């Protein structure tokens, strides 16, 4: 069994999160709900044949799962850090021979895994049902998976998730309740929603090139925020200023 401390911390966090029903319903339920709702939407759209705007519609829906990964991890990350603050569990934790980096990484892994897995699960269900519907509607090939969906789900979604977690860490050190931290971190979905709106309006194409550029931008922001979140997570401030 691994003795990698961040994984030990993540495992504990996952255990705690697993016992919070509201977080589970929110994290797993929302992607599944979106998958089912949009599958039904695809079915109704294809009732009278394959629409010309299929590509835009189907890929926009995949992009919604990317947006989800900017919202869902922040809930867990905010709970994971502010929750420790509220339950006053940080002091004994900080007195163990763990580094700030290990603690942050452990909490980050725990906040990252469930949302990304449930987003992938929701997206997979949506892609499978869409393929089934489209094949029955007369499309002669499997529409999904495709490269665009691959870049969105395997590259952009994880980067968006990391972004959300980093903002949650920074927000958590500035506010004293889970809701506040969650709300600040949740604001990260705005740029992603703007891109979605631009895509639907035809101002942004969900092409591989655009998605890769967008991913690169998010990666740069992720890197900058990583250093900022490390700088924000100071043991002394946590213990003396967090009330």
């Amino acid at each position, binding site marked *: *069994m691994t*003795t990698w*401390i961040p994984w*030990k*911390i993540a495992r*504990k966090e996952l*255990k*705690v999160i697993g*016992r*919070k029903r509201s977080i589970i319903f929110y994290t797993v339920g929302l992607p599944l709900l979106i998958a089912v709702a949009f599958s039904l939407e695809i079915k109704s759209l294809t009732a009278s044949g394959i629409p010309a705007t299929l590509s835009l519609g189907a890929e926009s829906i995949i992009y919604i799962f990317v947006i989800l990964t900017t919202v869902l991890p922040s809930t867990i990350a905010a709970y994971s850090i502010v929750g420790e603050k509220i*339950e*006053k*569990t*940080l*002091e*004994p*934790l*900080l*007195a*163990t*021979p*763990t*580094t700030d980096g290990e603690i942050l990484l452990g909490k980050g892994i725990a906040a990252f895994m469930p949302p990304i897995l449930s987003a992938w699960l929701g997206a997979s269900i949506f892609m499978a049902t869409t393929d089934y519907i489209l094949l029955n509607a007369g499309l002669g090939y499997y529409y999904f998976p495709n490269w665009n969906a691959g870049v969105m789900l395997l590259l952009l979604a994880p980067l968006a998730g990391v972004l959300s977690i980093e903002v949650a860490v920074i927000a958590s050190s500035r506010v004293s309740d889970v809701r506040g931290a969650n709300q600040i971190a949740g604001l990260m979905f705005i740029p992603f929603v703007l891109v979605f709106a631009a895509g639907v309006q035809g101002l942004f194409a969900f092409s591989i090139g655009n998605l890769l550029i967008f991913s690169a931008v998010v990666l740069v922001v992720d890197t900058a925020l990583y250093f900022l979140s490390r700088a924000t997570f100071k*043991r*002394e401030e946590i*213990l*003396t200023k967090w009330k």
Partner: protein
Amino acid sequence: MPPALPSDSPNSPFLSQIYLWTVFYETLTFNSRQSATYNQEVLALIDTDGLTKKFGDLTAVENLSLHVDDGEVFGFLGPNGAGKTTTIRMLCCLISKTSGSAKIGGYEIGNEENALRIRKIIGLVPDNVGLYESLTAYENLDYYGTLYKRTDSQRKESNEYFLKLLGLWEKRNALAGTFSKGMKQKLAIARALVHDPEILFMDEPTANLDPEAAKTVREFILDLKKQKKTIFLNTHNLDEAQRICDRIGILNTQFMAVGTPEDLERSIHGRKTVVQLRQVNEAILEALKKLKVKNIIREGNKLTFDVMDPAEENPDVIDAIVAVGGRIETVTVTSSSLEEAYLKLVKEKIQ
């Protein structure tokens, strides 16, 4: 003693030279090795010198110098806001010092590398128990065991040992959130001990506990004392400090006093002598004043006064009373209480 030259030392001149150089080296290093061993034996596990912590303009701890030896239970007494928790946090490398120095187990605090070493050899019971309420008692202990990189079998053994020792084994699968305050406190102590630390820091472990739970926790600390565990105990419970601690330090931002509970009691007022007389008169009072006896209190025919050394001073006092015709019924020597000592020191600081 340096190593002796054995009778079977080599006969060859060359080998003899080497041998003699070896013996010479051994002899030279013997004293330093002995000294190192000795230092290790008497090494203070906690050693601070002028340790100071400021938060902006506020000085929380000022110029604290103390040492705590291996196996000692050191009590840190002081009112709220005296800097007790801040001191523990500095010593546990949770917050930085402003100036001065401190060593824990020989490691100087103040850098991250040593901080990790120090945190490996200490256990902390904070003033808030800080348990994961949605984890079971067993899971709480096990999690901390993993953070100290204990193996599965070590964790299993120590979790079972402490849960049984503290009477929580039957409740091991119950969520910590369902525990009473006393049970939570016991679990927090067990959590601080899962890695068998050299030093245990406890920040007011019986605060907010009902008398029964406080007694249980106190008895457990006394058990740890019997096992020669080094304990640094923050408390403002004087009775607890007196019963548990080998030495007590009284802190009110600055160190006011340090010593055994008995030393502290004596150091404040010395000791009191109570003389019950058949009749007190002015001549007796005058005679006592001439002896420079301090703080004479008269209550009816009972006189109470301070003496530093009863064995030395009381015979003169008795002679003086008898010389002016006083008739003594009883002579009793009493000490001031730790509470009196504490209150006087804290009051002096406020004034």
